[in-house]
């Protein structure tokens, strides 16, 4: 008999709201900036409101903002109250937290003045990673690249790509150590091509000297340069 009485009582309480089912809401949090921040936020929030923090997802969220999942009793608390509580908590480092609203990154539209300037002086640099290497990495291509490298690049970048060629001595900007690009994936091609074509600081724009194919061969060779042991 006792058992039969017990079950309807629980159901009765839940329907009247005394034992209401907990709700879980998600908040995007601004201000999580130091390693101490997540713990400070979750423990403070649990202490102040008596809610349960289910999860704080710092990585792999859709918008990139950390997502805090809070389980609370909707009969006692509202979403706005939790937002206010989050805004009132202070980080040990002195930062304040806030609930992020709106788009992930706020960037204002270009003003008329900027539009005019870009029309007069040219837009930003093109999206270089979009370039694709038309020449496949093969021994022949790498061989041709090596010949070009020894002819044009060694004076500054050195025989083994260490940035220590004889001419590097008098250059204020240090020549790059090319072994950084060892086995780089194809997304680096566009950047390297753009850099070789246009040059920077003391590096001349090789686009006027080498043809497109020669520059791609060179990139294929650069990717084989290893750190000397």
């Amino acid at each position, binding site marked *: 008999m006792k058992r039969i009485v017990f079950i309807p009582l629980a159901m009765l309480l839940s329907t009247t709201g005394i034992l209401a089912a907990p709700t879980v809401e998600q908040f995007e949090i601004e*201000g*999580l900036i130091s390693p101490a921040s997540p713990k400070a936020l979750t423990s403070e929030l649990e202490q102040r409101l008596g809610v349960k923090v289910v999860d704080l997802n710092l*990585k792999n969220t859709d918008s990139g903002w950390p997502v805090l999942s809070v389980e609370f009793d909707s009969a006692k608390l509202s979403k706005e109250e939790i937002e206010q509580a989050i805004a009132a908590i202070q980080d040990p480092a002195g930062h304040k937290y806030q609930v992020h609203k709106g788009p992930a990154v706020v960037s204002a539209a270009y003003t008329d003045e900027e539009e005019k300037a870009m029309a007069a002086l040219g837009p930003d640099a093109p999206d270089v990673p979009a370039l694709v290497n038309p020449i496949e990495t093969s021994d022949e291509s790498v061989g041709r690249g090596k010949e070009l490298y020894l002819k044009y690049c060694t004076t500054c970048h050195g025989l083994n790509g260490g940035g220590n060629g004889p001419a590097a001595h008098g250059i204020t900007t240090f020549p790059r150590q090319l072994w950084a690009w060892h086995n780089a994936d194809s997304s680096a091609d566009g950047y390297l091509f753009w850099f070789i074509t246009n040059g920077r600081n003391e590096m001349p724009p090789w686009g006027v000297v080498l043809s497109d194919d020669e520059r791609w061969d060179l990139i294929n060779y650069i990717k084989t340069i290893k750190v000397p042991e």
Partner: protein
Amino acid sequence: MARKVKPPRMRIGKRIKEGEVFKVKVRFEHPSFTGLGQVDTESDPMFNRAIPVSFIRNMLVYYGDELVSRFSMTSAIADNPLFTFKLKAVKEAPVKVVFIDNEGERWETTGDVKFA
């Protein structure tokens, strides 16, 4: 986060001769945030969004009424940057530098070029 931005300041040499190349220095106290923070430094270090991003987006240089140059910048720009560039003194006219940040806010500063 409250930003502390002071109006930009410009410095131009006083003895400029006609046809000479002169230096312009512009100092702008503007904070720069990539907006990223590294919270988990032990198990799997990776950046997450921490605060709204803020940086100077464009710097436009006018010499007289003419637009001379545009500096395009990213969130990699330093806090409180100091810009130095050179101009050729072809006329006695004010040099105006305009800053616009990623929130669309605008600041400007001017300096006079007078031939000695």
